[in-house]
């Protein structure tokens, strides 16, 4: 098997290498990182028959353009509704394609979504940090951000027979109108009417949105005045309220600990759709019990397994 070589001719901000994440390092101040939308990342890997934790490229609305310099390889794109253009020909946003030397692949923002994933049928060559190539945004550690002028190598390339194929869009890929949250772990720092506000009013995503988190715009959520809490561990998906009463949903590159109270935490599988909301789009938060949250995750997992198995067979 020969290698495929690509030149990065354009890369927007927040375009990074990611694998399934750097688990187990949070006690050392290192968040899991990994894909913002873990479901779409799983879809590109399954569609190519890759291991579920293979390295891929996460693409923001900044977009990415690659020129294939050498070789031939099948690739997959999924996540959000981006434009995928190969040699000037537009393909579906969720697609499996084969590219060869001389081809230009451009991935640009489309009608919806914030993050899309590009994976190759082969081994994308990226140096790991602490056992993972996932990029930790604030420091750039891990595989890092992509930049124009860079060269990418895909080793052990495979090529799928047949023309471009569409990857079916699962129900959970779309941004939701409403996401389930479990109250806490510091909801006790908020008055009952403040919690009622969070659960009643829509909140819009602001432009302050990156891999660490997204600030929300909506009614203020003032914590109780006499609050003085020691820094506490943080979970991905927690809705942290800073001293100015503004909530922020903490995402893949969140800090591992912090001193602001978390009024509620988004159910983990619901973050995949949530991160595909764009700035200025609104969402409602619905409270569920911890046991209901476990039920939501388990039924999504069962559906997701069936979906991913179907994709694997499509690629086989």
């Amino acid at each position: 098997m020969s290698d495929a070589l690509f030149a990065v001719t354009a890369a927007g901000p927040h375009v990074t290498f990611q694998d399934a994440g750097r688990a187990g390092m949070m006690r050392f101040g290192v968040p899991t990182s990994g894909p913002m939308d873990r479901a779409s990342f799983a879809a590109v890997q399954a569609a190519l028959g890759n291991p579920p934790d293979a390295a891929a490229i996460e693409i923001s609305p900044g977009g990415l353009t690659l020129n294939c310099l050498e070789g031939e390889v099948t690739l997959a794109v999924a996540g959000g509704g981006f434009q995928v253009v190969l040699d000037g020909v537009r393909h579906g946003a969720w697609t499996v394609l084969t590219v060869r030397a001389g081809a230009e692949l451009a991935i640009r923002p489309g009608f919806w979504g914030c993050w899309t994933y590009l994976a190759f049928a082969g081994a994308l060559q990226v140096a790991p940090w602490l056992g993972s190539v996932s990029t930790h945004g604030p420091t750039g550690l891990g595989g890092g951000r992509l930049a124009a002028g860079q060269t990418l190598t895909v080793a052990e390339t495979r090529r799928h027979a047949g023309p471009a194929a569409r990857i079916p869009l699962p129900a959970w890929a779309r941004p939701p109108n409403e996401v389930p949250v479990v109250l806490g772990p510091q909801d006790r720092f908020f008055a009952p009417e403040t919690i009622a506000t969070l659960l009643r009013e829509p909140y819009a995503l602001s432009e302050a949105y990156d891999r660490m988190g997204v600030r929300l715009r909506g009614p203020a959520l003032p914590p109780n005045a006499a609050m003085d809490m020691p820094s506490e561990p943080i979970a991905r998906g927690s809705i942290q309220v800073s001293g100015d009463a503004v909530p922020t949903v903490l995402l893949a590159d969140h800090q591992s600990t912090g001193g602001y109270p978390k009024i509620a935490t988004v159910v983990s599988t619901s973050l995949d759709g949530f991160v595909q909301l764009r700035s200025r789009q609104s969402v409602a938060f619905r409270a569920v019990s911890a046991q209901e949250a476990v039920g939501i995750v388990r039924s999504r997992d069962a559906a997701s397994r069936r979906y991913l198995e179907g994709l694997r067979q499509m690629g086989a």
Partner: protein
Amino acid sequence: MAAAYPAFRPVADHAILVEFGDTIGHAVHDEVLRLDAALSPSSVPGFLEAVPAYVNILVRFDPLVSDHAVVEAALRHLIAAPGNAPRAGREREVRVCYDAELAPDLTRVAEAAGMEPEAVIAAHLAGDYRVYMYGFAPGYAYLAGVPEPIRLPRKTAPVRDVAAGSVLIAGPQCLVTTFVMPTGWWIIGRSPTRILDGGEGDRPFLFDVGDTARFTRIDRATFEAEAAR
């Protein structure tokens, strides 16, 4: 509000935050370390990872394998079990140069404390430091134990682009930075000691939570030589 500890707070579908108190101190942190040392996939069904902090510890589990009720029961059992000892912390040496150029806030700390700069340095070196938690950025180990006379509230506004290796203090806390970052803490020295790639085995960094730290003073020439390594 009289809170009963330990408290078990569910976090979404995948974690429980176990709280042992609401005030920072050695005794509460010992409770955190004791539970931390007892956690494993065999003692807690579905256990993924734990994040210890000052007064509490986040226990993450796989919701496909376990749930909050099962995990809470396992945690209560571990906490109640006699003889669970905290993992023995190791003492780690951190070398510091207090040269004025590398310690831009030393004179202001001295003025605020009503001491000579040399007395501030002596106080800092005499502190009894323990790693309470990591936070803010990879490798940022929060060391509590700054002696009373040199405890200062943080600055009113952060300073940008503070060099990696800076030795910072604020209140009872001290930390050695691992990246160029903004900080509102007081910069009293610079260390050549590698924290970020100073680990071994399954510990990637110099410290684990529960370790103790001893600062030793080095001169500028030694700092330059060690920092260049």
